[in-house]
C-alpha cells in the first residue's frame, strides 16, 4: 500500500481540508474505487464524493472514473466550476 495525496478544490476543502491522504494499492486504483476509499477514510466526504457533479482531475487533466491513479500522481476532485 502507498499514500496518495488527493487535493480537494472549492467547497470540498471546507469539509476536509485542502489535501487528504488516502491509502491505495501500489498497483493503483481507479477513480471510482478511489471515491469509495475516500468515503471510508473521511466520513464527512462520504455523501458528496459520489456526486456525479464532482469530477476527478489527474495530472492536470479531467478524467473519467475508469482511469487508474497511483501514489505520486497529482489527483484532485473538482466541485462544479464557476468562473466569470
Amino acid at each position, binding site marked *: 500500500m502507498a499514500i496518495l495525496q488527493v487535493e480537494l478544490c472549492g467547497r470540498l476543502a471546507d469539509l476536509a481540508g485542502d489535501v487528504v491522504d488516502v491509502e491505495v494499492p501500489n498497483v493503483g486504483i481507479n477513480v471510482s474505487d478511489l471515491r469509495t476509499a475516500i468515503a471510508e477514510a473521511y466520513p464527512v466526504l462520504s455523501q458528496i464524493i459520489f456526486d456525479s457533479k464532482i469530477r476527478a482531475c489527474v495530472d492536470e487533466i479531467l478524467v473519467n472514473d475508469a482511469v487508474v491513479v497511483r501514489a505520486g500522481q497529482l489527483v484532485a476532485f473538482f466541485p*462544479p*466550476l464557476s468562473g466569470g
Partner: protein
Amino acid sequence: MAVFLSKEPIDPSALLAGFQIEGAGAIASFTGLARGTGQDNAVISSLVLQSYRGVTLASMQTIAVESIKRFSLLHAHITHRSGRILPNEPIVFVAAAALHRAAALDAVSYMMDLLKTEAVFWKYEETAGEKRWIEPTEADYARAQKWNQ
C-alpha cells in the same frame, strides 16, 4: 490570442487599449465586476476566486482558442482574476476582434458563457463573516449549452 490569470487587480481600460489589431472592423469587450450586494441584499465584503494549478489557465486558453475558430476572430483576449476581489473590482475582462460586429459580439457572449461553466474556478462570497459558495445557475448552464446546438 492573449490569456492571463491575474492575482492582482486588473484594469479593463488598459487591457482594451492594448487590444489592437490592424484590419479589425469590430471590437467587443465585456467586464464582469464584483458586486457589493447579493441577491437577498446582503452586504458582500469580498468575492474569493480559487484556481487550480495549470488547469485553470489551460481551461481559459481552450475557451479563447475555440472562440477564435468558431467566430473567425482576428484576436481574442481573456484576463481573469483569482484571489480576494473587493466590490466594484473587475473579476474578468474579455475582448474579441473581428471583421464585423455580429462575430465580435457573439464571441464575447460565448466566452463569458463558457467561462461561467467551463473555466476551472470556484468562488465564494463573504458576507458578515459568512462564506457562501457560488455555482452557476440553471440559466448559466442553459446559456452555455445553447452554443452546442
